[in-house]
């Protein structure tokens, strides 16, 4: 086995195992920390798909931003260690049936179609291409996102600010 494949297996295994902890752990704080490993694992998988920019964005946004936010949320919740506050789980059999059905469907889809084969070409940096495509081919989506973020910002400020003080 080449070192390449071993590394891939290690990353894939870490991702799946930590994802299991996220789903099955009874304490929400363990779930939150296991999520860290899952997200880093995803970043590693993106590198194997030659998506270097996506992988860095994954680490910066999900690991650096969203996960920290989740951790803050978890830590600021009172009585987090209270044994009566364990996270609720649905019936294991229902979840298992749903998961197996989903796995069967996606498995069938993967199996039935000759998806594009891996291209035998050298790794090239995608960042500069993403940059120029964003301002040429994908200009409209790029600008729509800016309006979307503005609107969402206004909405978030409205919902988040404290009640107006009556003079």
């Amino acid at each position, binding site marked *: 086995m080449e070192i390449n494949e071993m590394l891939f297996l290690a990353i894939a295994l870490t991702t799946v195992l930590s994802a299991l902890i996220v789903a099955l752990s009874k304490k929400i704080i363990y779930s939150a920390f296991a999520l860290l490993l899952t997200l880093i694992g995803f970043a590693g998988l993106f590198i194997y798909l030659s998506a270097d920019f996506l992988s860095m964005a994954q680490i910066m946004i999900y690991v650096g931003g969203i996960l920290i936010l989740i951790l803050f949320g978890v830590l600021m919740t009172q009585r987090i260690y209270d044994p009566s506050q364990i996270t609720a789980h649905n019936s294991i059999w229902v979840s298992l049936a749903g998961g197996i059905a989903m796995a069967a*469907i996606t498995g*069938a*889809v993967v199996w*039935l*179609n000759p*998806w*594009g084969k891996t291209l035998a070409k050298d790794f090239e940096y995608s960042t500069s291409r993403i940059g120029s495509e964003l301002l*040429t*081919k*994908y*200009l*409209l*989506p790029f600008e*729509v*996102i800016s*309006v*979307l973020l*503005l*609107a*969402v910002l*206004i*909405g*978030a400020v*409205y*919902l988040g600010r404290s*009640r107006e003080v009556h003079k």
Partner: protein
Amino acid sequence: MNNLESLQFFIPELFLTAGLLVTIIVELLLKKEQKVFTAYLAATVLLITIFFLIRQYAIEPAALFGGMVVIDPMAVFFKILTAVSTLIIVFFSIPSFRVKAEYYVLLLATTLGMMLMAQVNDLLMIILAMELVGLVSYVLAGYRRSDPKSGEASLKYILFGAASTGIMAFGFSYIYGLTGQTNLFEIQQALQSTQHNPVILFVAFVLIIAGLGYKIAMVPFHFWLPDVYEGAPTPVTAFFSVGPKAAGMAVLIRFIISIVAGVSADGQTFTANAPIHAQELLAVLAVLTMTLGNLSALQQKNIKRMMAYSSIAHAGYMLMALAVFTSQSVEAVMFYLVVYMFMNFGAFWVIHRMTPHLGSEEITAYTGLGYRAPLVAVAMGVFMFSLTGLPPLAGFIGKFYLFAAVIKAEWYILAVLGVLNSVVSLYYYAYVTKVMFLNRGDDESAVSISSYDTALLLVFLIPTLVLGVYWVPVISWATQSLHFFLG
């Protein structure tokens, strides 16, 4: 067409965005008691946008921004429809949101999203436009921060919305993996030129329908709707019931004419790209949607919840017509949306203005309203019978076209099930009218109605009555707009 050349065909959207930014800045300069001015500013912006939109009918169908969006009469039709519905909602909201300038900014942002939804031609743009509408809608649903029900509505909306968008994006990823394209017409060509395994296409279709179906409240993706409609402030509920739904229908039509089926050059015949039984699936979902909507509406005590289930049922009628894939059915859906806008807004306007007087949203609170506020009660009766689809009201003509399209395509069982559903719906719509006129309540004092309320009521009442006897202009508008850009 490249980005720079496309700008001249994008004037309404650019103007709307500029108007949105100006509204934000003007709001900062106003004192609190002057802030109602932002509502009038938003209305003016929308009015000018509609004027620009009407002029777009002269433009030849084309793809803009390198195929991200298209401009064709169908897009213009839906853009005008959604802009008009938002314009009405601005006036609808002025009595209750006088000093809330952000509210009007958010309405304008949603309108921009709905206008983009009407003309999307790329998987990426579908997600972005739907999220622009969706994310702002979550805020609007929770706009009454002091009301826990409003917060609950917002939370339920965001959880369902996020899940369904994720599922839809997953479906898109299959389509992208199969064809290597995100442009809808390039996907169509790729699907027509190569044979793909129908199972994969079917799975992708189901996943995508989950996302689109959530937007138009199709069963089984409707769970959010009753709670959101009940919890959101009534003007917002009215807004959700027409504009975003029409935009969702527009995306569904685009999806059907590009990925699911190919349309001949004259726009008359639809041929499926792959044997995935999309029509049968849509027909089954349509029957489920209207049946569940109507049967659940029967049991509702709260009038806003009843209207929520009624809106699910109406989505079912429109889906029923779309399932047959003919140009006639698309035309019927377009006509129905215009009619639905007036009668549904009318019903919500009565609910909105009467709730403070009646003190409750229960249907029983409307007991004897016919003697306390005759004009309002008569109007409500007209809206209810129009929603049922009784002649000579606008709703009857709308339903007539829907059923005619289904029967002409020889889907008789579907049409029969639709008619049976209409009969069921008569019970709960007529029940509201019955308590208003045949029963007398304890409180018989007259309800005073301001002239503003009456004026807006007439704006909804007159089209509902007139379109029932003279609907030619609207149906010919829909026929003229039935012209797609086809790659």
